[in-house]
């Protein structure tokens, strides 16, 4: 959040001030990340479809996956989508495992075409798209990180202060009641925002990138600690999958918060940088 050039307009209720909320670099890297994460998720699901099962450790115990999605034939001869999780089997027909294909035929595929890139089954193409956007995502992320450290964006806007942290329980209650900071308090990221962004930027994304690297046989030769860090290559693959869905969960909550706390104002601030806050009285 850069320096504020307020353009105030008084109304009966209070004052509307337009502030410059997001710098150009933050805005551009944000939208490149949106594109990359979308493409990485969808091409990643295509790659997963090639062997839709996850394991812990170094090797695949094919008969006992920790998680799997597939299509089975029931004893009475029907086909059924099935997800296996923690030893429990769930009927997922119509969602994953077995769905209606584009031609109306039943399609036995872990993640259905609308969720994958490309839509048609191609592990080769899925990998190519995944690696292209992986490079773009990492370079974009490093650029953002370098910029944010240099301009103290991290220190100033992301790391919560003692006061922020003391307000954590209060902030959780406010969010639960869908009451968001207004007025002067809306100038800054609130404490839950700060913690969520820090978690994504400094934990989830580094972990998913490292887990991805740990799946590369060449990088495992150069950096044997990489695969050991995750407790084996299959563990790294499983972590990569789990963190991908944690990032999806973050995006769902993030977009929900944007919608609930003023979709247009938020969206504009991430496009033009300008964000309107309303204060009760002038000069607060």
């Amino acid at each position, binding site marked *: 959040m850069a320096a504020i050039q307020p353009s105030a307009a008084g109304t009966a209720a209070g004052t509307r001030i337009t502030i410059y909320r997001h710098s150009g670099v933050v805005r551009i890297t944000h939208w490149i990340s949106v594109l990359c994460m979308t493409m990485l998720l969808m091409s990643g699901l295509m*790659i*997963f479809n*090639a*062997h839709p*099962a996850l*394991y812990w450790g*170094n*090797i*695949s115990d*094919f008969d006992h996956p920790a998680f799997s999605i597939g299509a089975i034939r029931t004893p009475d001869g029907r086909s059924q989508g099935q997800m296996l999780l923690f030893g429990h089997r769930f009927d997922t027909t119509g969602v994953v495992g077995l769905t209606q294909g584009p031609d109306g035929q039943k399609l036995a595929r872990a993640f259905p*075409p*609308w969720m994958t*890139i*490309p*839509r*048609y089954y*191609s*592990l*080769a*193409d899925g*990998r*190519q*798209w995944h*690696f*292209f956007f992986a*490079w773009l995502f990492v370079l974009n992320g490093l650029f953002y990180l370098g910029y944010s450290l240099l301009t103290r964006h991290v220190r100033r806007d992301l790391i919560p202060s003692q006061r922020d942290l003391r307000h954590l329980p209060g902030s959780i209650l406010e969010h639960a009641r869908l009451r968001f900071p207004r007025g002067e308090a809306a100038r800054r990221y609130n404490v839950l925002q700060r913690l969520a962004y820090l978690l994504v930027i400094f934990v989830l994304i580094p972990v998913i990138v490292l887990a991805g690297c740990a*799946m*590369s*046989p*060449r*990088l*495992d*030769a*150069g*950096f*044997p600690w990489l*695969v050991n860090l995750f407790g084996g*290559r*299959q563990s790294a*693959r499983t972590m990569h999958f789990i963190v991908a869905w944690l990032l999806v969960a973050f995006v769902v909550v993030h977009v929900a918060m944007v919608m609930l706390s003023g979709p247009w104002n938020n969206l504009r601030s991430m496009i033009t940088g300008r964000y309107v806050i309303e204060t009760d009285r002038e000069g607060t």
Partner: protein
Amino acid sequence: MKRRQLLLAGAGLLAGCDRIVQTPQVRQMLAHTEDITRTVQRLVTAPGALAPEYTAADISPTFKGNGTIDPDDEDYQDLAAGQFKDWRLDIGGLVAHPAKLSLDDLRAMPSRTQITRHDCVEGWSCIGKWKGVPLGSLLQQVGLRQGAAYIVFHCADRLEQSLSAPKYYESIGLEDAFHPQTILGYEMNDQPLPVRHGAPLRLRVERQLGYKMAKYVMRIEVVNDFSHIGSGRGGYWEDLGYSWYAGI
């Protein structure tokens, strides 16, 4: 009505995506990504860096047999029926001394044994113990000629059930060819290499994915470039769109 419009718009968008995916310019851009990945991975890892090796306790109880697990080629079937006594590894191309080696010849050469992890492009991994002749020492023995750049492995198996289908082949560069863990394996888990896993001889390239590790190797050809072989992309799966560099 609204829902229908939304669905149509969604379908249009997705169809558009698939069209973008298949344009030549986009293909080109993606191909460059492979070059970047290869170059960077080679820059950040030492040329001789060894793939992790494991202990006997780590060996997979069942090692998945993938791709062809029993070639239906008649000549191959005859060789297998004779315990591969008549099998000869043909080494030619840009070499000073072309050779035909029997299994006994290979077994008499210095060998390397390694317990390594096999990572399939599909995502699964198995650990196995392999014994074989280091490819580098074999290549030194036959001597590479000027211009030698790639080692091509011609195999006995066809993945598609048709006689006109291409036979499996693969290729690697010299850096991997002379890597100490790159071996022509004739034993797996202390037993003669089973047919399922590529008898009598398969390649192990431990820093790349499984599809590089050609099974049922019949002939080794040293070449300057591989554009005249198959569809010209360096391997059976490469000809179908997979990347030649499989270190990732």
